[in-house]
């Protein structure tokens, strides 16, 4: 839906890093390099980035039930 504010496991705030991550990965940069430069060290936080699917633009067009 939308990027979580924090990592599910360790609680590190990660939401503010997502836009840069998305932009750079979409440009073709390697996700590993981007995550390393954003200093996301632990694999729990990295997994949140890698598994994220943005659906809020699609879901937002519909009425909430």
């Amino acid at each position, binding site marked *: *839906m939308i990027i979580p*504010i*924090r990592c599910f496991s360790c*609680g590190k*705030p990660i*939401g503010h890093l997502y*836009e840069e991550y998305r932009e750079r990965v979409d440009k073709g940069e390697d996700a590993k390099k981007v995550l390393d430069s954003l*200093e996301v060290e632990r694999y729990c936080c990295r997994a949140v980035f890698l598994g994220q699917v943005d659906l*809020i*633009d699609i879901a937002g067009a519909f009425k909430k039930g």
Partner: protein
Amino acid sequence: MKLEKLKEEKKKGKITFLLKDSDEVFANTIRRLVMEEVPVLAVEDLEIKDNNSALYDEMVGLRLGLCPIKTDLKSYELKENCKCGGEGCARCELKITLKSGKNGYVYCEDAVSTDPKCTFAYPKMPIVKLLPKQKVEMTLTAVLGKGKDHAKWIPGLAFYKREVNIKVGKVANPEQIVQQCPAPGIFSVKGNKLEVNSDKVHDCQICQKCVELDENISLEETGNFIFSLESWGQLAGKEMLHHAAEILVAKVDEMEKLL
């Protein structure tokens, strides 16, 4: 007991220090005090006037609760200790207003706090994403709380591991050990001999892989602990430790009185 600072990154709020002449019990006490007892501000109540975004009110509320708020512990009090008796006053509550109708992400920086010292720690944290004609308007109330009640009040991560010395004798296959060690940079090969880089030994994860591969390598525990603190942005790394120490003293005093 002695403390020795190993590494400090003030911008990221990280501190690593060595805990000497102590034991696991004490190290774990500090860890638990930091994670469970040191109070920080977090959004607890919100009054929603308008929200027709894609996220339900509850989801927006939960997201706002998790956004770290810079905390000044001198000007705020836990609700149960406040002079107002828990009713809510300027000493125990922080009011924040959030209003946006712009297309795109609503960030934490769009929220206006009544206390300029205590604002959201990460200005670019996305709360919701709005499409045209969608808007949010709400009033938030942040209060101090403890990590044992909810994860949003945890000031940071505290963890420790044992310190080891790595002793290397004659090693048959040094290249293999450099390759298999999960922490990069601890081992290096110099002229067919395995060498330990002393400044990287603290990265050792004590996985025992090198000991399994070669019996001439041994890990010796020094009895010290490598203690790491990582702040989530509400307090500085040092502040967390400082307050944990104060709470420990207060708790010991209380116990002394009760006995």
